[in-house]
């Protein structure tokens, strides 16, 4: 074998190795990709399909490309849509204002108790979701401690109540999703090196300015992640509204639940589900862009 041949053999080997290395990321993506294709994309296509069908449970459904299903769905649940985003938005804001100081305290003042405090944040998750929500029914009950105290303080009228109002639903959602807000914010705050804050102080920034100019912008990825993790499931939630809310003022999730499982009107339920998804996307895409977190992750 001449040296040229040897070199070309080596080159072929190297090229094969390079090709294999290139294939590795795709192979790693394969299981997740398959999972998504089978259990997410395929059902999604099916869902859109159903949303354009016509018929009843008894007679069966047939595809008629009936786009009016969407108009019907909005006529039926337009106000529920609005209410869903109102409740979910209020709960997300409330959760943000509770979670941020909490995460800040754990990240910067937690010291050796950091991990313990994080476990405490997650502790409610050891109780089932349903049970936690039912517990709020007791907490906010008409003759309960919270309502009585608020009455004594004249914050609500003597005949007022909290249970079966929007307040109760917002309180329930806020509580149930608080950890989803706290953890991403904690992670982004925890990553901020204390010397960055010292550097801001060194450059004449008072604590408030240092927070505004350094800590807050650097924790934006956590805020964005936390608000998305809260807003998205909260907008589609139906448990809080059905257990804590007023049956006359439900959320879109309740209507979907009803249409699918009780009235068995699959096309309308599917149209509502798909619309909900589109509305959520329409909200979060500009939100993620506007918050400019691409710079931070880059």
């Amino acid at each position: 074998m001449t040296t040229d041949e040897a070199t070309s053999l080596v080159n072929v080997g190297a090229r094969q190795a390079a090709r294999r290395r290139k294939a590795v990321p795709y192979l790693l993506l394969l299981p997740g990709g398959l999972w998504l294709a089978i259990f997410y994309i395929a059902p999604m296509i099916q869902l859109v399909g159903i949303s354009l069908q016509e018929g009843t449970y008894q007679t069966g459904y047939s595809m008629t490309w009936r786009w009016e299903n969407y108009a019907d769905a909005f006529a039926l649940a337009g106000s529920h849509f609005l209410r869903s985003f109102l409740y979910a938005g209020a709960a997300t804001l409330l959760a943000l204002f509770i979670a941020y100081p909490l995460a800040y305290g754990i990240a910067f003042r937690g010291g050796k108790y950091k991990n313990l405090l994080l476990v405490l944040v997650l502790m409610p998750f050891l109780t089932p979701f349903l049970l936690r929500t039912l517990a709020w029914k007791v907490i906010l009950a008409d003759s309960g401690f919270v309502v009585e105290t608020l009455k004594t303080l004249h914050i609500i009228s003597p005949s007022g109540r909290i249970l079966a109002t929007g307040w109760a639903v917002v309180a329930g959602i806020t509580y149930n999703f608080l950890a989803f807000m706290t953890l991403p914010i904690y992670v982004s705050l925890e990553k901020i090196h204390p010397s960055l804050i010292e550097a801001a102080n060194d450059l004449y920034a008072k604590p408030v300015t240092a927070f505004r100019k350094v800590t807050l912008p650097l924790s934006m990825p956590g805020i964005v992640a936390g608000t998305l993790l809260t807003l998205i499931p909260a907008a589609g939630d139906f448990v809080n509204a059905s257990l804590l809310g007023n049956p006359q003022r439900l959320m879109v999730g309740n209507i979907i639940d009803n249409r699918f499982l009780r009235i068995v009107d699959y096309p309308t339920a599917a149209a509502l589900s798909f619309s909900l998804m589109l509305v959520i996307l329409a909200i979060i895409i500009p939100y993620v862009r506007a918050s400019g977190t691409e710079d931070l992750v880059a």
Partner: protein
Amino acid sequence: MTDTTITTQGGFGSSEPAAVELFNITKRFGDVLAVDDLTLAIGENKFFALLGPSGCGKTTTLRMIGGFEDPTEGTINLHGEDVTGLKAYRRPVNTVFQSYALFPHLSVFENVAFGLRRTNVDKGELEQRVAEMLDLVQLSGLDNRHPAKLSGGQQQRVALARALINHPRVLLLDEPLGALDLKLRKEMQIELKRIQQEVGITFIHVTHDQEEAMTMADTIAVMNKGKIERMGDPAEIYEDPRTAFVANFLGGSNLMPVTVIDRTAGSVATADGTTLFVPPKALSPDTHGFRVGVRPEKLNVYRPGSGDIPPNVLTGRVMDASFIGVSTHYVVRTSTAGDLSAVVQNLTGDRFSQGEEVSLGWHPERSFVIHDD
């Protein structure tokens, strides 16, 4: 050194107040004594280095001057004004942090402008000053880059520009070159010195690298266990380190325990009775047990019986000879003082090999004296 009152240029009674004065500063973290009753004055426009091993209290001292730690006891003056209780953001002092601490979400321009934005400088002046500063640190044109897209050396320059742009009265540098590779570090040492001379600001530089301190600083304070062991200009403390710690931390040293024979002649005896000479003035009247030290590069290696050996001679056998280009490093085992190291410049091709019997010689005035505590 047991006396803690150490004065350099300015301060303590001179008419011009020193840039920085520390009076009896003590800092404790719980049970740990980080800085122990430190008193120090640093003159205007000096390049001052705080040198010591990790945990000696040098960074804590710097952080107290910057306002990031409060001293447990004592007061800190900046240009004659007591700033002890003042927060960092109220002190006319800026810092170059060890890991640079550049704001990752801001561009180079905004990083450098950060301090000016807090002080109501108008837009035109701000832009002009940032441009000038980026020019000074040779970063012009990188205004819009983010720190993550810069090399280590460039990040270091941004950190420097960000601090200097505010015209601080004192600039604090906390191991600023620690993260750079050797070649870049050497370049930045010269660069920092140039910039310090150009801007005429007092630099206080914390480092554990003795060569870095000697390259840049006018005055070096060697710290050990929360105290300053020795302070002076680099050559002075290198030639006469006075304590064993300084002798070993600042370069290498050969130390030999001796007893006095004749104080006026400066003659002393080693453990096995060999007579050595030291400068008589180095022997204070109360000196009895102490050590004679000599730097490895001041020892020369001779063939036994060679004619021109200086007065201080010890004989031994070469245990190790390492050729490193400009010089050869020998370890010579002597019966008198154990293993001594000698660094001999490769002026000629004549070298000694392992196992050879040699004489080590040095001039009395090249030795220093260490008083054991």
